[in-house]
């Protein structure tokens, strides 16, 4: 692996757990451990698993203008959010194309924006440029990605395992809420109830210097119920079963959040935000494509980039696809014209030269997720 790949503060933990390491957006990350993707997936669905997602970007906005500044950058309504709440949102260009999908934490005195690893420099540049042009109350944007590590502790038994370690009452935080507490003796840890798996669980922000201690404490606390480190491979199968968007697949610069399946994050009643006019125009004109979920017949898996057909005519493209372990079936997400998006619509997927029958199904694919 190239010497120019970035490593998270937990890199040596992955090596100790004999991870298979891959280049993921210039980060040397665990795609799986010897446990294997199928078993890792099952551990998260039935018990609890621990992910290192420190490769994501953590940008902090401080100053009296922090909330209105970030509010203007995102499609969701940050001014309606209370301190202690986080939002999922798109960050758009003026033309409505998605720069990134982000989670935004409204903290007591600042706002934290969490961006995808593949978009780190783009989002940093965008926020810096926008801060310079910002005419509202003063803001300062800081990149805290190196100082802070980010873990995800996900599974139906996440809360029971972490509860004894947290010096605060986790019952006070519902879905998409967070608190700041001492965890496993480590001060000022941000614990938020959200994730990318569909299961109950937490995303956790801790100083990089103490991240190894927290990683080990969480695995130790969950040892008796089979808690294990989980790689990016299972992270992808878990999110696919939930039909969550992946930037670079469903979302892109030439895709709007309305098209990409996250229209629910776009609050048109907001006074203003970057991209609003373009999205309003797109909505008024009607969408030309939308995301659907589909199941394929047989055992060949649909894959990203394959063409979708109806009656011999090419109508769209697969954005994500693969084996869904909980359903034991090949499933996919893809773009089709809205007229072909109804559940039950018959499609065909060109899987390596063979037209394989597929059918539009309800999203999410996995119906038994434990998230609250």
């Amino acid at each position, binding site marked *: 692996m190239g010497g120019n790949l970035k490593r998270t503060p937990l890199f040596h933990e992955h090596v100790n757990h004999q991870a298979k390491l891959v280049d993921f957006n210039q980060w040397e990350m665990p795609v799986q451990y010897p446990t294997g993707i199928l078993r890792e997936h099952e551990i998260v669905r039935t018990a609890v698993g621990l992910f290192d997602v420190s490769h994501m970007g953590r940008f902090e906005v401080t100053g009296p203008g922090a909330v209105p500044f970030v509010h203007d950058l995102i499609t969701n309504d940050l001014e309606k959010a209370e301190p202690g709440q986080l939002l999922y949102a798109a960050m758009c260009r003026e033309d409505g194309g998605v720069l990134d999908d982000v989670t935004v934490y409204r903290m007591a005195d600042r706002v934290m924006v969490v961006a995808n690893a593949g978009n780190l420099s783009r989002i940093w540049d965008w926020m810096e440029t926008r801060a310079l042009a910002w005419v509202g109350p003063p803001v300062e944007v800081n990149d805290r990605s190196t100082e802070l590590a980010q873990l995800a502790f996900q599974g139906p038994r996440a809360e029971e395992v972490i509860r004894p370690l947290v010096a605060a009452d986790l019952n006070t935080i519902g879905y998409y809420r967070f608190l700041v507490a001492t965890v496993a003796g480590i001060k000022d840890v941000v614990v938020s109830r959200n994730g990318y798996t569909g299961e109950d669980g937490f995303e956790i922000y801790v100083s990089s210097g103490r991240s190894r201690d927290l990683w080990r404490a969480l695995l130790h606390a969950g040892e008796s119920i089979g808690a294990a480190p989980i790689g990016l491979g299972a992270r992808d199968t878990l999110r696919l079963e939930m039909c969550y968007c992946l930037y670079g697949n469903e979302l892109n610069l030439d895709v709007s959040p309305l098209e990409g399946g996250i229209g629910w994050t776009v609050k048109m009643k907001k006074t203003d935000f970057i991209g609003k006019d373009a999205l309003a125009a797109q909505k008024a004109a009607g969408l030309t494509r939308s995301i659907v979920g589909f199941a394929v017949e047989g055992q060949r898996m649909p894959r990203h980039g394959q063409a979708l057909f109806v009656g011999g005519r090419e109508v769209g493209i697969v954005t994500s696809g693969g084996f869904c372990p909980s359903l034991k079936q090949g499933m996919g997400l893809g773009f089709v014209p809205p007229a072909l998006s109804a559940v039950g619509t018959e499609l065909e997927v060109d899987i*390596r030269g063979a037209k394989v029958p597929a059918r539009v199904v309800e999203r999410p694919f996995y119906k038994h997720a434990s998230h609250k």
Partner: protein
Amino acid sequence: MNVPQDCRYTKEHEWVRVEGDIVLVGITDYAQSALGDIVFVELPKVGVKLVAEQPFGSVEAVKAVSDLFSPVNGEVVEINAAIGDDPTVVNKSPHGDGWMIKTKVLDATQIDQLLSPADYEKLVAGLAGGH
């Protein structure tokens, strides 16, 4: 990485083991490890004619799909039905219970042209240690 001495290898990570005038074909330990958990193996039917270096099936892993290339010209005489029931046997035992097809060999000299275990080990070492 397990590279059994009684096999010959292709650059595409198939192995063959000669048993009389029949060869067994499978994918190597390196290949199964690189693919990760295998969920489906598509194999030809008995009687299908194989052409060396041409695809004869595919392996679907959770993350990726990979073609299977025939090491030799031949004709399929048996397929391993066990991997249809449980494809993970290919991960667990790529050179043993995870064999894929048995084929009649039409031209035995083609086997001699395949990689020796030592050459295959070198190939894999180059893939693992490089860049």
